[in-house]
């Protein structure tokens, strides 16, 4: 493996680390503050297209080491898409089958991509009358498969697996520390399983206790896949509020408009969760005035064209002769 020439013997050698970090790019046009520069860490540059590659790889390796998978026994996981894509592609590349349980509201592109990556898809209908905090249908259905058909399935369980957090403690955090030469003052993240926030925060604070960790959340009723509103965080056992300084709730529609802005002004093809994080970060730039911010951009916009058109209808105009 040679990170300098980018030549690898297999896809797993490309996984990120301090020696092979995902790139960070300064935001020059959406953030005009010279006193508070913002750098976006582009997690879509990971081999399978998102920040979830890190957690997926850590969980998969751990399950292999413990003999949890192999032979007839593959994986089942509740996933809004990115973890499923990472896990499916990794699992299939190593000879295991994988079942992805997905809520209906996930965009069509992700459902198709999951199957392209090698997952057997199971789509569950959205809650009839949503009951915040009680655990959602896709998590419980995946757990049911793992329990009732344990000869066939093991569940990594990204919402409870400490390897998710550890992945970011061992890779994302050290990368950011090295890339910013210790200058980081603010970390901006979104919250889904909360692995990224918890692991990265833990590492950075071990180096610099006063790093501010700001988590950005969509308003209730959002359709930004992978993210959870503050009322839904109970489902993730990895959420540790002591590792977060601020949770900002942002109108979920801004996720899409800001993502478009990133694409069209910075040349960064960022997805809606990145747009949401940007909105929150700009609020903090105005509030705190001085700092050095790193935004973790989870994935690119390519999987979200149908959601983008839903929220920015003009994108759908002039699309036929």
């Amino acid at each position, binding site marked *: 493996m040679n990170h300098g020439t980018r030549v690898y013997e297999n896809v797993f050698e490309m996984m990120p680390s301090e020696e092979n970090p995902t790139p960070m790019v300064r935001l020059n046009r959406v953030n005009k503050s010279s006193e508070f520069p913002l750098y976006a860490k582009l997690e879509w540059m990971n081999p399978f297209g998102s920040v979830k590659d890190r957690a997926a790889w850590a969980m998969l390796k751990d399950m292999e080491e413990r003999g949890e998978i192999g032979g007839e026994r593959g994986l089942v996981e509740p996933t809004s898409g990115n973890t499923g894509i990472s896990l499916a592609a990794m699992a299939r590349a190593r000879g295991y089958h994988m079942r992805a349980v997905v809520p209906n509201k996930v965009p069509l592109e992700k459902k198709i991509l999951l199957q392209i990556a090698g997952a057997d898809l199971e789509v569950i209908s959205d*809650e009839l*009358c*949503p009951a915040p905090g*009680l655990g959602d249908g896709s998590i*419980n259905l995946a757990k*049911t498969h793992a329990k009732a058909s344990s000869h066939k399935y093991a569940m990594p369980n990204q919402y409870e697996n400490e390897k998710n957090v550890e992945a970011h403690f061992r890779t994302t955090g050290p990368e950011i520390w090295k890339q910013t030469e210790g200058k980081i003052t603010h970390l901006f993240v979104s919250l889904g399983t909360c692995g990224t926030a918890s692991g990265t925060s833990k590492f950075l604070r071990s180096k610099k206790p006063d790093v501010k960790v700001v988590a950005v959340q969509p308003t209730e009723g959002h359709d930004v896949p992978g993210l959870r509103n503050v009322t839904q965080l109970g489902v993730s056992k990895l959420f540790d509020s002591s590792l977060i300084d601020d949770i900002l709730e942002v109108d979920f529609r801004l996720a899409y408009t800001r993502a478009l802005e990133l694409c069209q002004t910075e040349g960064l093809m960022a997805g809606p969760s990145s747009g949401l994080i940007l909105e929150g970060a700009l609020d903090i730039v105005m509030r705190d005035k001085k700092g050095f911010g790193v935004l973790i951009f989870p994935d690119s916009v390519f999987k979200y064209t149908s959601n983008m058109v839903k929220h920015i209808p003009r994108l759908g105009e002039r699309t036929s002769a």
Partner: protein
Amino acid sequence: MKGDMARYANPETLVETDWVKENLGKPGIKLVEIDVDTKAYDAGHIPGAAGFNWQTQLQDQVRRDIISKEAFEKLVGGAGISAGDTVILYGDNNNWFAAYGFWLFEIYGHKDVRLMNGGRVKWLNEKDKPLTTEVPNVTPTQYKVTQTHLELRAMLPQVFEAQKSNWNLVDVRSPDEFTGKVIAPPGMSETAQRGGHIPGAKSIPWSTAVGPDGTFKSPQELHRIYVEQKGVDLNKDTIAYCRIGERSSHTWFVLKHLIGLKNVKNYDGSWTEYGNVVAAPIEKG
């Protein structure tokens, strides 16, 4: 009101997961899982449990109504249940649909029906509780309904009457639905023309009755919340409602069998009926 604050009014209507595990497979004990999405049952259920689909098997498929007596007999008999059996109900979405099933079993006069505290999710998360994909071998019975208790059900005229007679009206929807800020939870297709609540109703969301693991709060806590804090009058008749009648079944169970109010009805038409009725009075805020 029956009972006192130290215990649930009808403690025999509630069973714990450990009790269910100890009594699995015993004669006269029949488990039924009631889900809105039976993928859950198919993926894995408590050994021996039959599975009912709330949407297709507990609802009349032509008009908006509960299933008829004849349909209930066919459904329950087909699941191998006899009139003398102890029926244990549990299900998804925190037992909402199992509670609806409980209400239906009681309407059709089944003597011994109980709810498993915590529902599917609690059983799923307990390491010692098994799940299976095996469909139970059932010997159908000739189930006969011998009495019907429609007094457990509120229809629209009674809802209007209840307003005049100052009954307890308990709205178990979210605060935003109650105030009329939203007509229904986001993304729901079954909604109404207007938002708000029935005049005089108290807002007591269904989740008030349970802890984080979905099990019901203690008798003392329930009394403190519903009676002392929210002002439910123990001496009045009561109607519980929500959007489509399943969250309100859960609260109906709490009010009737745990707190012990004497006359509690579930208004299954709920807001999808009331919020569409021409000239029905509505309060907002």
